[in-house]
């Protein structure tokens, strides 16, 4: 495989503005097929915007984004063939599952993507049955989204994207607002999800080494660091500067006040 094809995403000096507010400021990044990347950054650092740029929901104000060597520009998405191929190969799981679960039942939710991509209905039914079993959601099949728990909603949201078997999975804060058990299930899923490119936006440093082989830290819409998770997590200066680490104070049983650096997701004494 040539290097150009192996590099799934290429971003060169990408800027994105929401009206007058700059969300991304000169992002340059290469992402290879099969990489598992954690996109780290405090709230407002540009993680969600970057995921939407990668999913071609937003197009850069300036700069260039390419997927498999083809530049992602709005005009290209007017062609059915390109749009269908891209949407099948790249899937985004939104942070708020209520945004993503807009159909009346779980089965309708799973069917939505394949129906839009004009898959044969027999194949859609087969894939639905496979996904219901694979994600352990068969008992929820006819349930409306407002009767699902937070963890169930996340599972259905991921299943509704993975039913298309995309080569790239983009996840926006997959463990936020989940109870510990659902969080652990989500981490297990991300750990097992091999063979496809997985890009996870998170500020939970506690899960980074479990789910990623590479970390990209964003700060004010720019790449502040790019490296191995173990290196990034140990760099407390970087983490403090980017708002991912702060001093944590708590009372010990003897009444003394103890202060130590606090990593989001777990304590490190």
């Amino acid at each position, binding site marked *: 495989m040539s290097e150009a094809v192996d590099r799934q995403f290429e971003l060169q000096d990408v800027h994105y503005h929401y009206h007058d507010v700059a969300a991304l400021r000169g992002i340059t990044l290469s992402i290879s097929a099969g990489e598992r990347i954690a996109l780290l950054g405090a709230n407002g650092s540009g993680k969600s915007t970057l995921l939407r740029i990668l999913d071609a929901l937003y197009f850069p104000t300036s700069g260039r984004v390419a997927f498999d060597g083809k530049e992602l520009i709005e005009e290209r998405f007017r062609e059915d063939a390109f749009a269908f191929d891209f949407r099948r190969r790249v899937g985004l799981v*939104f942070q708020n599952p209520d*945004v*993503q679960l807009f159909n*009346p039942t779980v089965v309708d939710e799973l069917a939505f993507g394949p129906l*839009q991509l004009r898959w044969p209905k027999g194949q859609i039914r087969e894939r639905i049955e496979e996904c219901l079993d694979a994600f352990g959601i068969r008992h929820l099949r006819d349930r409306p989204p407002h*009767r699902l728990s937070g963890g169930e909603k996340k599972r259905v949201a991921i299943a509704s994207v993975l039913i298309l078997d995309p080569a790239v999975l983009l996840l926006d804060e997959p463990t936020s607002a989940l109870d510990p058990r659902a969080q652990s299930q989500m981490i297990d899923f991300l750990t097992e999800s091999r063979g496809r490119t997985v890009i996870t936006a998170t500020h939970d440093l506690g899960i980074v080494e479990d789910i990623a082989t590479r970390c990209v830290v964003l700060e004010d819409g720019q790449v502040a660091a790019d490296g191995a998770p173990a290196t990034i997590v140990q760099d407390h200066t970087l983490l403090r500067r980017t708002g991912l680490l702060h001093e944590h104070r708590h009372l010990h049983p003897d009444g003394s006040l103890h202060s130590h650096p606090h990593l989001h997701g777990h304590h490190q004494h």
Partner: protein
Amino acid sequence: MSPGLEHRQRGFVERTLASLLETMEHTLLAERVAERTGMLQVRDARVKVIALLVLVIAVSVSHDLRVIAVTFALALTLGWASKIRLVELMKHAWWGTLVFSAAIVAPAIVMTPGRTILRLQFGTITEQGLRAAGYLLARVGTVITLCSVLVLTTSWARILRALRALRVPVVFVVILGMTYRYIFVLLQTAHDIFESRRSRRVGPSSASQNRWAAVAAAGVLMSKTLELSGEIYLAMQSRGFRGEVYLLDDPPMRGPDWLTLAGVAGVAVGIVWISQ
């Protein structure tokens, strides 16, 4: 504070929200009833929607109180066979509707000219007036019971899909489905806004404070709705939406469904024939 006193001190908007939440709870109750294994729960939703339509038309054109009463009894029997408790039917259907209908029809009892049955200080009750009121209440009661049996034995998702059997356009069905879906999200948001306001309030609020809170909540809800709709559109686009909507077809109806439909059609024809 006693619940009654608390109720009096709550503002108009909070009371409205409490009612909306109560409606939401009723809907959840309906969804739970629809999951029971009863006679109508196992029937195809298309059969139930068409059967309801046919029976409603038949009852509406019937001029025989006995036939309407038999249809009412049939609706009750179907409800019983579908494991709907009488109290659920009363709460869901009868109470509000029949009281409202009775209030509307009451003047007709004394205002309709005809054979006098009883003279009162403010008017005369006539046989024709009583009969008109009886027909209206019997028809309303029967139709509401039939509708409630359908709604309680079928999830909204299935009812919406069954509308396609009546050639309702797909886009209309999808919009209705999404509206129903997000009413719950927005109701919950509205509830949270007022709960948070109540948790920080000391003592009763004045009318102007309540009005201000209502306007502020409406503004916040509007802004959240716009934000949510933008996000939903992106989520749809991300999964391939390009302006056209598609739905999975329902599986074909089975033998027992066709038999049920034929039976209901027979009953409807019987109602109309006997009434002539």
